[in-house]
Structures are given as structure tokens and as C-alpha cells.
């Protein structure tokens, strides 16, 4: 317990460091002369997609025409022009171009149309970095208590972490993989806690939360590819026999038209694909629904101020209820992703019981 306040202190220092390095950028935009801001007020679809999608700066709020956001580093590599690194605040929210690049609807494009790679630290990447710092801080602290509390009852953060680690080990890894589960534990634990913490951070509406990390298809794709690669690396002969010469089916399903092998190979790729889509769709849908309920206040408010006030009560109740549901979903999706990964790892080691 006694190292917790210190750790807290470190954590706040960490966040302050992030804010100070990136710096809060406050841009003055004349709301009256800017047609963009006027239309944004009513375009709920655009607003929602803006929140769900990735961005080059971490928008916090717009106050009387001023965009308050955390600018993020832009890293661009073009074979002709080389590497360009600068802060996204140079674009002034798409009003200016910089070094031959400009921001168009959240995407960087080169003014001369030349080919380049965008490796920027976007909002999602920054959120990943924050989540990684959190993960390392929590679990290294817990690991420290495990070493100092050897042979004693758990204490502090260890008491929170321990049942979860045991849950992943005894309810996910052991029953799905079997006796060889130990080698998969680091990946399963990392995936579980990475997804969970990012799901939870995504539910916090303001910086450093609110980024839609696990609802981004690129993120879920990388996670699913990890599962796929680990599954494929750790296969045994039985797995491939099961694919190319599926036991227990009539021979005419395999020859002359290899129907079963085609279906099985399709299954090999559809499994990680579904894994990718499920997490992405669940988290994005959750974010969207909450945003829709919040936006309803402004839709009704634009018709009539009192309708807006009236809707706000109902909307807040609904979005609070949905946030509670999303807290459950945050855990559930982390669990489902980890469980299915573990099941695929277990299936890659088919035992000859046919």
C-alpha cells in the first residue's frame, strides 16, 4: 500500500509531461466567418465519425470558436523529400499547409500529389502509448509486490491484479490450451489487459481517455494477426492433416474437388478476421451509441431550446446506462478476444483422437 501514493504521483507527473511536451494548442477560429464550424454544429454524423476515427491532434473541446487540443507529432517519409517531423499544430486545424503537406478531412496529403508514408503519432498512437505506460506501471508495481510479498498474503494493487491473472490462467488458458498453456500466457495476459485497459480508457470522455483505440480496425487487425501468427507458428502435424485430409468426412468431399480443404483453409483465415471485426465493431458501436444519445440533445436543442433541455435528461440517463453497459462490454470483449485466441492456440495442436 505504501508505494501507491508515490506511484500515483509518478503517474500524474507522466501525464503532465505528456501535456507539456506536446503543449496544449489553443487556436482562435472566428466562428462567425468560418462556415465549417457552423455546419459542424448540426452535422451529427460527421461529429460522431470525427470522435470514432483517428486524428492528428487530440481535440479536447471547442470553446467560443477556439479549438483546444493536444497537438501530436507528425512523422512523414517520402522517397523524394525524405523524413519530415513536426507538430500537427503547424497545420492550424487544416487552415495552413506546412512543408508541402496539408491536412484534408483529417488526412495528410501532399500538395504536389507525390507518394509518401504517414507514420505520425496520431491520437490513437498517443492513446496506445498512454495505455502502455499505464499497463507497465500497474503490472510492474504488482510484480514488485509479488516479489516482496513472497509467501505472504497479497496486498495493494497485487490483490486487484491477482484474481484477474488467475482468471486468465485458469479460466481461459488452461481449459482451452491444455498442459502446454504456460508458453502462451505472456501473450494472452498482454492481449487481455491491453484490450481491457484501452476499452476502459475509451469510455473516459476527456483527455487522456476517449480515444477509440480498440474500435480502430488497424489495431484489432494487428492483434488478430498476432493471434494468427502465433497459432500458425505453433501448429503440429495433426492440425495440417485436419485441414488437408479432414478425418471423419466422406472421401468424395476431398477428391476430385477438394471441397473440405477449401472450407478448412477459408476457416483458418476467417477465424482471425472475425476476431478483428468483432472487437472493432463492438467497441465502435458502443462509442457511437453513446455519442448519438449525447448528440440528440443538440439536435433537439437546435429545434427548440426547451426541447434540448428536456431531451438532455433522458439522453443523460440513457448514455449513463449505456456507459455502464459499455464497462461490461469492455471486459467482455477483452475476455472474448483472449478466450478465442486461446481456443485457436489449442486447436493448432490437434491430438490424434480420431
Amino acid at each position, binding site marked *: 500500500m505504501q508505494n501507491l501514493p508515490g506511484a500515483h504521483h509518478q503517474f500524474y507527473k507522466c501525464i503532465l509531461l505528456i501535456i507539456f511536451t506536446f503543449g496544449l494548442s489553443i487556436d482562435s477560429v472566428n466562428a462567425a466567418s468560418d462556415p465549417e464550424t457552423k455546419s459542424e454544429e448540426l452535422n451529427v454524423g460527421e461529429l460522431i*465519425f470525427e470522435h*470514432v*476515427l*483517428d486524428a492528428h491532434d487530440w481535440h479536447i473541446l471547442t470553446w467560443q470558436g477556439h479549438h483546444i487540443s493536444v497537438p501530436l507529432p507528425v*512523422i512523414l517519409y517520402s522517397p523524394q523529400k525524405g523524413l519530415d517531423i513536426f507538430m500537427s499544430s503547424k497545420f492550424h486545424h487544416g487552415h495552413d499547409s506546412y512543408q508541402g503537406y496539408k491536412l484534408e478531412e483529417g488526412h495528410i496529403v501532399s500538395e504536389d500529389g507525390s507518394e509518401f*508514408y*504517414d*507514420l*505520425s*503519432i*496520431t491520437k*490513437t*498512437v498517443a492513446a*496506445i*502509448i498512454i495505455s*502502455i505506460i499505464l*499497463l*507497465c506501471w500497474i*503490472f*510492474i508495481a*504488482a*510484480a*514488485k509486490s*509479488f*516479489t516482496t*510479498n*513472497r*509467501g505472504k498474503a497479497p496486498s495493494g494493487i497485487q490483490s486487484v*491484479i*491477482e484474481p484477474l*491473472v*488467475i482468471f486468465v*490462467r485458469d479460466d481461459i488458458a488452461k481449459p482451452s490450451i491444455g498442459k502446454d498453456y*504456460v508458453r502462451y*500466457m*505472456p*501473450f494472452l*495476459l*498482454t492481449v487481455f489487459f*491491453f484490450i481491457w485497459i484501452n476499452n476502459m480508457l475509451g469510455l473516459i470522455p476527456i483527455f487522456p481517455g476517449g480515444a477509440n483505440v480498440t474500435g*480502430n*480496425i*488497424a*489495431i484489432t*487487425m*494487428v*492483434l488478430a494477426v*498476432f493471434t494468427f501468427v502465433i497459432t500458425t507458428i505453433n501448429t503440429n502435424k495433426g492440425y495440417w492433416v485436419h485441414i488437408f485430409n479432414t478425418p471423419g468426412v466422406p472421401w468424395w468431399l476431398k477428391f476430385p474437388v477438394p471441397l473440405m480443404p477449401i472450407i478448412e483453409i477459408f476457416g483458418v483465415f476467417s477465424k482471425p478476421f472475425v476476431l478483428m471485426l468483432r472487437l*472493432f465493431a463492438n467497441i*465502435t458501436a458502443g462509442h457511437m451509441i453513446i455519442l448519438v444519445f449525447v448528440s440528440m440533445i443538440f439536435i433537439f436543442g437546435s429545434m427548440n431550446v426547451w426541447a434540448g433541455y428536456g431531451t438532455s435528461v433522458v439522453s443523460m440517463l440513457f448514455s449513463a446506462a449505456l456507459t455502464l453497459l459499455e464497462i461490461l462490454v469492455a471486459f467482455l470483449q477483452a475476455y472474448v478476444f483472449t478466450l478465442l485466441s486461446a481456443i485457436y492456440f489449442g486447436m493448432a495442436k490437434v491430438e490424434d483422437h480420431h
Partner: protein
Amino acid sequence: MELVTPDIGLIFWMTLSFLIVLAILKKFAWKPILQGLKDREDSIKESLSSAEKAREEMAKLKSDNEKLLAEARLERDKIIKEALATASSLKEEAKEDASKISGKMIEDARNVITSEKQAALAEMKQEVARLSLEIAEKLMRTNLSDDQSQRALVDRFINEVKVN
């Protein structure tokens, strides 16, 4: 459509950062945590098994005690039985001896009585004879001159009298 188009930069950073976090957590978190959990579970298992062993030992001790107790009880019963048997045999013997002795005493007494009776009878016979003689003498002092022939007569009379 943008929603389902993975961004190359994001894929790059995600892969890199996930590998980094996996490596860091594997080395500094999962290894000590899983090891700590395993150690604790092992020690709990060990304590439980040693407790079980102690319990078994206790049960064994208890059964040993019971066995000892049962043996002691058996021994006690045996001793009591033996003592009872000895006592009863002693009693029998004493009884026998007593009856033997008393029988002998009775026999002796009877013998003594018989002999005493015989002696008494003989003496009585003599005394009777003497008394009779005296009486006869007193009665017939004068009539009888020849004492010797008279006495023989009296003796014959006395012998004819059956004394019982």
C-alpha cells in the same frame, strides 16, 4: 469506408508498441507474477499435504493408543480371570483340606470314644461285678462260706448279662 480501412502508420506503431509492451511485461511483470502465483500455490499445496500427513499421523497415534488400551484391557481381564480361578481353586482346596481334617478328627474322636467306651464298659463291668459282689456279700454274708465258688457263680451271671 474510412472506418474499415486500416491505416498503415497505425499498423506500424501498433505492431511496434505491442511488441514492446509484450516484451517489457513478459520480462518484468508476467514472469514474476506467474512465478509468485505458482510459488504460493505450491506452498499452499505443500502445507495442505503436510497437514494431511500430520492428521494421518495423529489418527495412527490414536489407533495405536487404542490398540494399546485394548491390549491392556485384555491383559487385565486375563489377570482377573486367572486370579479368580486361583482363588476358587484355593477355596476348593481349603474346603477339601478342612473336610479331610474334620473327617479325621471325627474319626479320631470316634475311635477315642469307642476305646473310652470299651474301657468304661470294662471298668463298669468290673465295678458292677464288685458292687454286685459287695451287695451280694452284704446280703448273704452269712450264707456264703465259700467265697471262691460264689464269685465264680456271680461272674457267670454277669457274663450272661448282655451289656449294651
